[in-house]
């Protein structure tokens, strides 16, 4: 019912864009608040439609998946959560999908954050992953199967220092259990004792720093989930092999969910994302048509 109304409404909204085009070409651009309304509708209506779309999986996501598939059960994976709530719509679905997959594959997860909010986002992601019946059935134990080391200040200096000794930066875990008393961390001294590093990053410090002060110094393997703003800057690293795979933005998250076969939030947002992109594209076109029309008028007038 709601879905049908939403579809009819979006058709009407779509048609009204033609009116907008005419107004703009006539030289009366509409107020910005009207544009705001369109964007609001472009996001609200598709969410109500509750439809999923087919999505091809790009090779950067596939690459990460292939690498993860090669990790053996029992592999130790360091997970750096470097983001805050504003970027959570993009990164949280990745983190949840990753944790679900990792727990199902019996990876040992070591969580840390270079952003103060990171470990808290990680707690939320773990909470959600634990709801999965298969994972719940494993009765995972904090300290043996996963550990949250918390946050440490110092940005890239934390990575640099961890290259020698994790314990120096994280003398105790989130629950203040001393590093040496945590079963999972026995014989984990520095990066040479973890099998893979996964980073969810919304900016600085983040994947940039992990590559520069981690991968290129200590030679571990790194995979990353990034906000879309940051993702394009990571392609040189991806090509040079400094990054083993990249999930870019919510679309990357949706692809990751697809390839891992974990249905999550990102996939359900795909339609809204598509509508929003379409709206922006249409606005750029309208704006530019008006721009050229006015330029033509001007040159004609000058003659």
């Amino acid at each position, binding site marked *: 019912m709601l879905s049908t109304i939403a579809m009819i409404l979006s058709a009407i909204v779509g048609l009204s864009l033609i009116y907008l085009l005419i107004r*703009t070409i006539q030289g009366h*651009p509409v107020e*910005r608040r009207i*544009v*705001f309304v*369109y*964007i*609001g509708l472009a*996001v609200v209506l598709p969410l109500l439609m509750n439809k999923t*779309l*087919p*999505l*091809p999986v*790009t*090779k950067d996501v596939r690459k990460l998946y292939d690498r993860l598939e090669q990790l053996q059960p029992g592999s130790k994976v360091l997970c750096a959560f470097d983001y805050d*709530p*504003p*970027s*959570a*719509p993009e990164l949280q679905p990745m983190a949840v999908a990753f944790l679900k997959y990792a727990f199902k594959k019996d990876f040992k997860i070591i969580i840390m954050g270079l952003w103060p*909010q990171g*470990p*808290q986002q990680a*707690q939320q992601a773990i*909470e959600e992953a634990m709801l999965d019946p298969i994972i719940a059935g494993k009765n995972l134990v904090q300290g043996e199967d996963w550990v949250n080391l*918390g946050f*440490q*200040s*110092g*940005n890239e*200096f*934390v990575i*640099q*220092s961890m290259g*020698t*000794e994790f314990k*120096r*930066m994280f003398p105790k875990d*989130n*629950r*203040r*259990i001393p590093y040496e008393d945590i079963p999972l961390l026995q014989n984990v001294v520095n990066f040479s004792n973890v099998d893979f590093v996964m980073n969810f990053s919304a900016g600085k410090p983040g994947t940039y720093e992990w590559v520069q002060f981690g991968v290129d*110094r200590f030679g571990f393997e790194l995979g990353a989930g990034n906000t879309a703003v940051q993702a*394009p*800057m990571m*392609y*040189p690293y991806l*090509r040079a092999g400094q990054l083993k795979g990249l999930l870019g933005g919510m*679309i990357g998250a949706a692809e990751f969910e697809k390839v891992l076969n974990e249905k999550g939030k990102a996939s359900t947002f*795909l339609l809204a994302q598509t509508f*929003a*992109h*379409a*709206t*922006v*594209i249409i*606005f*750029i076109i309208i*704006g*530019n048509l008006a721009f050229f029309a006015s330029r033509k008028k001007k040159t004609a007038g000058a003659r």
Partner: protein
Amino acid sequence: MRRQIPILITTIAGLVFAISYFIPHDPFGESESIFGDWITIVQAFAVWLGALNLLKISFEKISSKSADRHYAAIIIVSLIGTLAVGFYDGYSGMAQDPQVSFRDPGTNFDWLYRFIYTPLSATMFSMLAFFVASASYRAFRARNVQATLLLIAGFFVMGGRVPLFDMMISPITDFPVFSWFADWIMTYPNTAGQRAIMIGIALGIMSSSLRIILGIERSHIGGGSG
């Protein structure tokens, strides 16, 4: 004295971190770790400086009867209130067995995080979606060759990363032409452009760092040219 000591500290710290990349042996390896410890602590104090400074400015606003003193009052109350909750949760959590962290689900601090901090910060940034749309309608023009190229590339990436264009051409072909093309742009021209920018920035950082370590650049310690 006021000038020399900071310059000396800058140079020593800079040299330690630059040299230890090449010489892992002590004293460089070890002093790097010690300096790293200090930096993490100093940065923690820097955050406290920010919070205290905010308090100071807000109190000043109230005492000077500035127009936005009401908002300054909100800042003071919310800042002190959150600090109180955080300290209470942190210390009482330590007394429990097993210990509970202030960020564990169920604590008051976590409630503040989920229901106050998260909606405020996330909504603040989500407003950019509206601004980007209105800017693309009112300001993003193909005013010259450069801007035209930019908009065309943006057009294909925006449309290709979601199944928008590909659905339109699905009656003709099943091959996702546009998403393939968006991917191609990202993998090749984007990599090339980003790489050129990256190399340029790396050289720029290298030269400014060099000037800082050698004491030629002193703006960070409140001095102009050397």
